[in-house]
């Protein structure tokens, strides 16, 4: 007998130590790692991500001069204390980082956004105002007998999607591989070997095609004269979904046509609500790269609101339009920018406001930031926690290639500490 | 009191409280509005057996109706809100909904609302739709010539039923001519209807009967053919009587209609008409007393 939960790996039957990859929402945790080397299992995102550990070390900077974390934090604190509308954006940090950034943002009355929020807020908008039926990765991997991919092949943003969630060699509750169907633009379509049934449509036709599919599922009349909509294929897809024991509709919200995402998800949600009256069919809204869903979850629990939250009014307020960080910068409404890029690599958007860059070493700043705090990458330089793209499973990220680079949480806390004397 | 040689008896008409509403029925043409109105207000002389008393108030021009089509205003009276609700539902459902091209609206904005379209909508079998424009809510019920549009609810007021006067004269022909003159003038008024055939009743009734189960029976005191054997109310020279019964949206409208009718009946009297009186129950039953002398003063 022992306290087993604390034991790591190295069981007699264990396959050696594996670690989780923090660089996309799948958080695949089967990457063998030893001695600072990570085997990335043919995943281009993982390969590129772990290669970031080799980036040359950079120093913290204030006003173009190298300095230490404490001094950088003090300078950042001074900028934030004076700011009327400081914006915290980018936000690709692990959960501890997000929690610390929220504490800092609240302290200085700032606004918080995430670089991927335009996409996942489309999912959020439908989930909360219309409702849906979804499932997590392991349910899909073990039960799905029909899978409909909508919008684009998920491999674009989630390279191991098929390997991890579809091609499960030992599923619990299905006898053969799931039947795969695709609805989306021809250019985004997966290979026909992988997905034999394809309803390909022209640019801009996703909504009418989804509408037709939803109507077919309801056994309602559908106009057939519009040649741009492949009704025959949709009839086939509808029949498969209705006959499925456990159908799954998958979409990568970031890959849906710009501006159409929310209504596309709305139509998918309508199908899911309808299908579950008679059979089971679940949605799998893929997302969560850059720990975006961790950021949403932590913001939800700390403030009661999903992202795009402002603390300027005292109590936290949520407004997807007003607190859209990119819009605020473009409109000149923010007067300081805290740009966080640890899991992500995007540089801060161009603006004329003082920038506090809390970024990994490989994030290039096109123009010098007022304050540059160089942080490590969770799951690479240091440990951390992130939430998977199915919003349920939080993954413990270990330090694959440990370094003494500070975490985002440490940076945010240092700034908060620097602010302490102010009441 | 003598008016144009006719004795106006110093008595009063005794009337009762009722519930009433006005509907506006429109159609493609005045003729079809009139057909709908006639049908919906048919068989509505007395609440005793018809459930409601109803009549056409007036024709409406296209400019006066909610949908810009010719129409007709109808008044409906019943003894209670529930009775009125049922009468409207049945009459509009059977006689207006069925009638080509019609639509039906509330003609009264005041008072507690009664359901109309919201009851009839179920005819749409799930294909009905509500539409609110301004402060009005309509139901659109698909029918074979398009949609039957009917307002969701209609206003309803406390009204007055059973205003009346009796024309006593020498001959049937003379009394009928006087009654027709009266009705013609009264129909020009707003807010009243004369629910009996052509606006005129010959069956002035009394309460009760010697036969079990009959609540009303012939008013023997005013029947000339038996005046020798009953306790008659008729002077010896009166050999014909007709009554005009008035329902109105309020007391003033009924009083005005009675005064107008009596004056018209008496006007141009050539000696045929001897007396005008009114029906009452000694003032014990109805709250509204229309004293003839006061109305004509």
């Amino acid at each position, binding site marked *: *007998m*022992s*306290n*087993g*939960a*604390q034991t790591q790996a190295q*069981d007699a*039957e*264990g*396959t050696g*130590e*594996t670690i989780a990859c923090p660089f996309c929402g799948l958080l695949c*945790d*089967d990457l063998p790692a030893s001695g600072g080397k990570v085997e990335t299992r043919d995943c281009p995102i993982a390969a590129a991500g772990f290669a970031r550990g080799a980036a040359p070390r950079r120093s913290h900077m204030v006003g173009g001069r190298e300095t230490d974390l404490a001094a950088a934090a003090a300078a950042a604190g001074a900028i934030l204390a004076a700011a009327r509308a400081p914006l915290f954006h980018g936000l690709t940090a692990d*959960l*501890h980082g997000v*929690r610390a950034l929220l504490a800092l943002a*609240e302290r200085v009355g700032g606004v918080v956004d995430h670089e991927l929020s335009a996409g996942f807020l489309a999912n959020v908008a439908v*989930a*909360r*105002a*219309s*409702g849906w*039926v979804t*499932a*997590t*990765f*392991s*349910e899909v*991997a*073990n039960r799905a007998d029909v899978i409909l991919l909508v919008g684009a092949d998920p491999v674009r943003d989630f390279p191991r999607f098929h390997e991890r969630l579809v091609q499960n060699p*030992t*599923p*619990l509750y299905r006898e053969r591989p799931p039947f795969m169907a695709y609805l989306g633009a021809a250019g985004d379509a997966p290979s026909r070997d992988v997905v034999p049934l394809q309803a390909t449509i022209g640019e801009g036709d996703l909504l009418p095609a989804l509408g037709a599919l939803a109507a077919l599922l309801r056994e309602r009349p559908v106009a057939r004269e519009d040649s741009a909509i492949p009704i025959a294929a949709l009839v086939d897809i509808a029949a498969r979904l209705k006959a499925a*024991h*456990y159908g799954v509709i998958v979409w990568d919200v970031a890959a849906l046509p710009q501006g159409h995402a929310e209504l596309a998800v709305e139509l998918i949600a309508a199908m899911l609500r309808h299908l579950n009256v008679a*059979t*089971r069919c*679940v949605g799998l809204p893929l997302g969560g790269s850059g720990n975006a869903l961790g950021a949403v*979850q*932590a913001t*939800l*629990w*700390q*403030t*009661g*609101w*999903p992202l795009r939250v402002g*603390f300027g009014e*005292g*109590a*936290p307020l*949520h407004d997807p339009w007003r607190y859209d960080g990119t819009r605020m910068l473009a409109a000149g409404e923010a007067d300081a920018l805290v740009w966080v890029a640890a899991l992500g690599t995007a540089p801060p958007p161009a603006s004329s406001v003082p920038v506090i860059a809390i970024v990994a070493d490989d994030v290039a700043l096109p123009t010098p930031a007022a304050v540059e705090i160089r942080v490590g990458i969770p799951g690479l330089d240091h440990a951390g*926690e992130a*939430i998977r793209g199915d919003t*349920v*499973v*939080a*993954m*413990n990220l270990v330090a694959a290639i440990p370094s003494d680079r500070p975490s985002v949480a440490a940076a945010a806390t240092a700034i908060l500490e620097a602010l302490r004397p102010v009441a | 009191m003598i008016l144009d040689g006719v004795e106006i008896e110093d008595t009063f008409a005794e009337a009762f409280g009722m519930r009433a509403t006005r509907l506006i029925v429109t159609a493609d043409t005045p003729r079809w509005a009139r057909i709908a109105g006639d049908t919906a207000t048919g068989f509505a002389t007395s609440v005793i057996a018809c459930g409601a008393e109803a009549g056409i108030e007036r024709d409406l021009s296209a400019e006066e109706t909610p949908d810009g089509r010719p129409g007709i205003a109808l008044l409906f009276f019943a003894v209670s809100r529930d009775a009125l609700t049922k009468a409207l539902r049945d009459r509009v459902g059977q006689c207006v909904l069925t009638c080509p091209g019609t639509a039906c609206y509330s003609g009264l904005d005041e008072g507690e609302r009664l359901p109309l379209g919201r009851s009839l909508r179920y005819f749409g079998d799930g294909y009905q739709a509500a539409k609110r424009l301004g402060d009005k809510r309509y139901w659109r019920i698909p029918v074979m010539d398009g949609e039957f549009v009917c307002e969701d609810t209609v206003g309803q007021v406390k009204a007055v039923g059973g205003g009346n006067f009796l024309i006593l004269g020498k001959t049937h022909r003379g009394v009928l001519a006087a009654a027709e003159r009266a009705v013609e003038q009264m129909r020009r008024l707003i807010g009243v209807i004369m629910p009996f055939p052509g606006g005129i009743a010959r069956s002035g009734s009394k309460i009760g009967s010697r036969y079990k189960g009959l609540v009303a029976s012939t008013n023997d005191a005013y029947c000339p053919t038996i005046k020798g054997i009953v306790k008659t109310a008729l002077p010896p020279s009166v050999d014909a009587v007709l009554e005009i019964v008035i329902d109105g949206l309020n007391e003033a409208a009924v009083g005005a209609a009675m005064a107008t009718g009596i004056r018209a009946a008496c006007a141009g009297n050539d000696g045929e008409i001897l007396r005008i009186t009114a029906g009452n129950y000694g003032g014990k039953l109805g709250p509204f007393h229309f004293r003839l002398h006061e109305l004509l003063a």
Partner: protein
Amino acid sequence: MITRIAGGRIIDGAEDEGDAKRDLWIEDDRIVAAPTDGRPADRTIDATEHLVMAGAIDIHSHIAGGKVNLGRLLSPADHRENPVERAGAALRSGSGLTTPSTFTTGFRYAAMGYTAVFEPAMVASNARATHLEMADVPIVDKGAYVMLGNDEYLLRRLAAAAEQGEINDYVAWMMQATAAHAVKVVNPGGISAFKFNARGLEIDEPVPHHGVTPRRIVAALARAVHEIGVPHPLHVHCNNLGMPGNVETTLATIAAAEGYPIHLTHVQFHSYGSEGKRGFSSAAHRIAEAVAQNPNVSIDVGQIMFGATMTESGDTQAQFRNRSLADPDTWISMDIECDGGCGLVPMRYRDSNFVNALQWTIGLELFLLVEDPWRVFLTTDHPNGGPFASYPHLVRLLTDRSHREDCLAQIHPAARKASTLAGMTREYTMREIAIMTRAGPARSLGLSERGHLAPGAVADVVAYRPDSDVAAMFRAPAHVFKSGVEVARDGAILAAPSGTTQLVRPAYDRQVERHVRRFFDDHMTIGFDHFPLAAGELADAGLAVAEQQCRPSAGRA
């Protein structure tokens, strides 16, 4: 640091003697005996005539975890209408009344005199996220019950007629892996059944694919929890939640425990008959009778309180059924990791609605009919029956008969007529309130140092200023101490220490890990090595762990 709480009426449910008027002494974080060496107090709190009780303990309140967050997401109006500004430099802001944010949850509980709260429905695969979230619930101690009984691994092992010992090891492993304080079963087998498209599950009906029955699941888990020595008995949310006539299921569930201790949760939702012309009636008396006859059974009520709220449950089968009640009409259902599920349905309980009104009376009947306050706990199943902020009003309903009858007069007349509540004269005493909200939950949860005021106990102390309106008294106690720190005064938060995470770590034979590892390797999308919370994870999240001892046993209670 010595604190003297002077002049109060001490109401300690755990003590046999009656209420005593005496001073209470606190040294640092503990209650101590009055110093005999004449040492003066560093500070004295004038609590003259105040009612002094231990900090209250909520045994069942959905305060954290994925479904709670989804509940927040689905409640924009609640958060818009209930903003909570930061009340001090060391404090945090938040929002929400029915689905409050974490800081607001901790502060509001503390301001009401609660010092420990237990999240009763942690999905195992969501454990890490749940604990991270609970790290942001300040002041109160917290713990979580891991949900088992719809996890495919257990169902498969039961289907394979695994020995009880293996089940015990698995349950113990799972509790350690998820840092749980207790084990909950929700709609035994029904959540798994829903994934196979079964829309209901009776207690003797086989779960699709597996063939095991809810009765078997309850028996195995109740026995396992008892034998591995977890203080809190199996926490059971029965099958058929909310269905007319479900009292039969509830009584059958008691029988299924075969004498092992079980705790039936939110029993109000499981005490329904099917009599009367509406086919819905109270069966509270039958439940109360069963509780009296079965000393192995405890309950919490899950009282409904009228108004808008959010229902959050692991019971996807019941929540999918309830979707037609959604107000506003938006709901979420989620199948989770071959492990569990969650369903969210916003709800508005109306006193003018017959069913809601009768539910309200059934809850109160249960409180008043169950005689032993040690075995009935005060809950609204927050937020499912109503927000925890409504507890003060609920206490008033229990202690003030005339107020109860005033409220009864307001409800749907047919429900009023159908209920026996009008004839019930019982008024809870303050001592009984102290037992059902402090001593009882502490004993049930194995929190030996909490729920009472004896020397040595953790100094979680509440002083209530007497008020003829009991609700007002319980809403904002004059003083609240958490581990000796005054955290709230008259409803305002003074300090925000972080509180502990309560858990138990039952021992198990490591052999079981080999089987579970294979299951994870073959089927799950998270590896066996990454599933359990690692040492230090809770500490990294800022949580202080407090472990309660297990008392393993082979026999029955």
